[in-house]
């Protein structure tokens, strides 16, 4: 009994910070319809700023005022940072498709990561204890930290204060109006821009407060931003996006669940959270208190998309020439160059599979690494446990990933827009945590090793040829599908789902099949990867890996298959050089933000436009 209550109380205490952060995300989404992936970064920023202030203020204001004053001030500072980000990065792109906003906030993550590294260094920092709250209370004989009890008492007041803000103030009226009806805000004659900035600042401040409040229980480190994304999104998705009470209930639910998970099922805490989420979503696709939402009417960014055409004679010759050069390269280059090229081909295939679902299908998947890593693990598990020869195990990569995509797609395809993005991300985290925690089978972060190709393929040169053939075939397959009736139907559903349904196309089913195909192709890339490296680790399934692919597709250009390939090549080429720099994340983040705002068509789109201007490419309308 005592143990049970102690667990419950710990869970409730943990819910405080989580709720604060989640409510900020929810608020921002409700008003601006932007899913702020950088929200975890503001949480991390809150922790660091909090530590710094807690080091300074108590000396000036005394221990009590110093500590709590530091927490309050932290929120204000982080809120200011949020406002800055909103004005500089998000304002120019509110009318752009969701993907652009998501990618831009990802750029912000990178920038904040490196800024934090610059200012606070790489060392993890312990949070200071709260003054006067160092000891424990004994409840039914179990020790409960005093600070936990304080947190438990504070949380309902925070909820109440937020509720009062939304229900009783003028700002609240505007926020509610904006959440329910976007047009109404404009009609009210409100300066919508400043409303958005204000809400973004408030949401970021909440994240900052969350980061500062948890300091006495934890501390600050550079992984905090990514680590909270999983629980954060689970909470918002379970609670219902845009709903504060929903966020509260879900934060409590997840935190309590986590504590009991640690006590009773220590190997599956992470998995548990996602399983709960999946169950909630089966029953209520828009979360406990969320409302059904029609996908946002987002405009185009850049010129309207031109009809797709297979390459003309010149284009084909160019591609054939390039392939010929790639085939002859082993005769002249060093092995390390071939290793790099192998990586590029694998990455290009992975990116092309994402481009297929994202560009042609219009489905912004944020968890594509689940299939890449999933494929790699499928093959590696076959080799490790069934001693399957490479030729057969390799087939399990696309097969396993395709099957995984069928399962995950079943949940995700029902939703669209940002809901789809959030859900794919959450499911990829589920897969990651499964692999990470199910050590008995996957060996956790020790990874699966000794996964080498058969004798006839071992060695850099044979495996390079193997990768080249498989990769090119995979990309050609995608290209064929895009130009086939199925690809057209997929595009039709993206352009106008209503029209497609009104001409007999089962849009959801088409998307489901496309999702599975994209998953299988990503798995194929994963299969190539695992035999190239001889091992696979959970990092191949991480959010970061999904984002890598997204960024590559985005940089290359969302609109054509070649965008993914060009982007992957560009990235792989500069990555080697870039990552040697000390603050490469900062550079990359700034680059991403710049591309989003200045050249939304990516490399391929911009090159095409340049070509048009110089008369190298023919305009479709002109011929």
């Amino acid at each position, binding site marked *: 009994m005592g143990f049970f209550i102690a667990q419950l109380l710990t869970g409730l205490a943990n819910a405080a910070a989580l709720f604060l952060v989640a409510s900020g995300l929810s608020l921002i989404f409700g008003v601006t319809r932007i899913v702020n992936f950088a929200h975890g970064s503001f949480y991390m920023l809150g922790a660091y700023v909090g530590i710094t202030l807690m080091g300074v203020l108590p000396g000036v204001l005394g221990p009590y005022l110093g500590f709590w004053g530091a927490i309050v001030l932290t929120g204000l500072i982080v809120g200011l940072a949020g406002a800055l980000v909103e004005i500089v990065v998000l304002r120019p792109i509110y009318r752009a498709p969701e993907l652009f906003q998501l990618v831009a906030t990802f750029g912000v993550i990178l920038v904040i990561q490196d800024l934090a590294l610059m200012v606070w260094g790489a060392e993890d920092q312990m949070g200071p204890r709260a003054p006067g709250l160092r000891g424990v209370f004994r409840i039914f004989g179990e020790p409960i930290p005093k600070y936990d009890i304080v947190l438990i008492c504070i949380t309902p007041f925070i909820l109440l204060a937020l509720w009062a803000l939304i229900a009783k103030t003028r700002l609240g009226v505007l926020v509610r109006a904006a959440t329910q009806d976007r047009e109404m805000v404009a009609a009210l004659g409100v300066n919508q821009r400043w409303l958005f900035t204000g809400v973004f600042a408030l949401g970021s401040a909440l994240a900052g407060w969350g980061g500062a409040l948890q300091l006495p229980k934890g501390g600050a480190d550079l992984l905090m931003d990514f680590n909270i994304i999983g629980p954060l999104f689970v909470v918002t998705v379970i609670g219902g996006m845009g709903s504060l009470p929903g966020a509260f209930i879900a934060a409590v639910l997840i935190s309590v669940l986590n504590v009991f998970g640690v006590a009773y099922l220590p190997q599956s805490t992470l998995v548990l959270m996602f399983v709960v989420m999946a169950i909630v979503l089966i029953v209520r696709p828009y979360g406990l208190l969320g409302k059904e939402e029609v996908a946002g009417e987002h405009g185009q960014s850049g010129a309207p998309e031109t009809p797709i055409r297979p390459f003309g004679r010149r284009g084909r010759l160019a591609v054939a020439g390039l392939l010929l050069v790639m085939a002859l390269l082993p005769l002249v280059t060093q092995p390390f160059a071939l290793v790099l090229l192998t990586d590029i081909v694998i990455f290009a295939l992975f990116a092309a599979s994402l481009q297929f679902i994202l560009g042609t299908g219009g489905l912004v998947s944020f968890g594509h690494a689940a299939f890449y890593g999933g494929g790699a693990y499928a093959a590696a598990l076959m080799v490790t446990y069934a001693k399957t020869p490479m030729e057969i195990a390799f087939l399990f990569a696309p097969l396993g990933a395709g099957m995984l995509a069928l399962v995950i797609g079943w949940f995700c395809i029902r939703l669209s827009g940002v809901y789809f993005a959030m859900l794919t991300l959450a499911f990829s985290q589920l897969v990651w945590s499964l692999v990470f925690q199910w050590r008995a089978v996957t060996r956790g972060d020790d990874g699966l090793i000794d996964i080498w190709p058969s004798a006839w393929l071992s060695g850099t040169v044979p495996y390079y040829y193997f990768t080249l053939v498989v990769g090119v075939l995979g990309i050609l397959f995608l290209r064929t599908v895009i130009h086939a*009736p199925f690809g057209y139907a997929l595009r039709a559903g993206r*352009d106008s789902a209503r029209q497609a349904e009104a001409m007999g196309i089962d849009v959801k089913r088409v998307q489901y099949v496309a999702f599975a195909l994209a998953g299988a192709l990503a798995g194929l890339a994963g299969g190539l990867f695992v035999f190239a490296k001889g091992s696979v680790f959970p990092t191949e399934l991480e959010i970061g890996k999904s984002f890598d692919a997204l960024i590559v597709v985005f940089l290359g250009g969302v609109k054509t298959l070649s965008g993914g390939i060009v982007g992957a090549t560009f990235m792989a080429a500069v990555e080697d050089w870039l990552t040697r720099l000390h603050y490469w994340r900062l550079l990359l983040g700034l680059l991403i933000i710049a591309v989003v705002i200045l050249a939304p068509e990516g490399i391929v789109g911009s090159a095409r436009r340049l070509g048009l201007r110089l008369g190298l490419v023919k305009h479709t*309308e002109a011929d």
Partner: protein
Amino acid sequence: MTEILRVENLAKSYGTFEAVKGISFTVREGEMKALIGPNGAGKSTCFNMLTGQIRPTRGEVFLDGARITGLPPRVIWRRGVGRTFQITGTYQSMTVIENVQMALISHNRRVFSLFGRARALYRTEALALLDRVGMADQAERPCSVLAYGDLKKLELAIALAHRPRLLLMDEPTAGMAPSARIALMQLTADIVTEEGLSVLFTEHDMDVVFAHAHHIMVLNRGELIADGNAAEVRANPQVQDVYLGGGMLFKEIDHA
């Protein structure tokens, strides 16, 4: 003439607001029937219930005697009902002819073909359809550059692709020049006679309505207040009331 569509007591509520209040009517084979009424009368809502975009709150819809109430749009389409929308929803990233080909691909159940060039499929049929609405010369233009009136024509070609027996057109001539309106409806009327198709359309241009509709229904605030031929509808006092003392019925009510 046998009836092709029968609607019984069809209603749609949004919360406490009843947009369509239990209307009943039939459409007979080979007829062109107009559904008119002021803005917000519930015409589009009614159409959307007939073709499955909106699920009715109550009431039934029968096509050839078979119940189709609440079926998804794609199933109703396969049963031979074509549809154009008040706000066109063509595929912006495709050419004009590809839009028509898409309908033909779906009609021939080739949507899930992973191989073969979609662009090469059913080109002749698609061109014939475009020719029929006078759009053959624009077949290869991207849909995104079309003039509004041409989009409406393209929509008609698309709606005819699966040889529907019943065609629903929601404001087919809105936003077109008066001469173009008459031409488009004349074209539709010709198709009706040639193929024995039935058409139900909404329209704000009374010239078009009286020139082409065999029968006219008037909807006002969700209620059907008249259903008959042109003379009957004109003589109906309630209808005259709705259209401001009758004068408006003979003028053009511009609506874009």
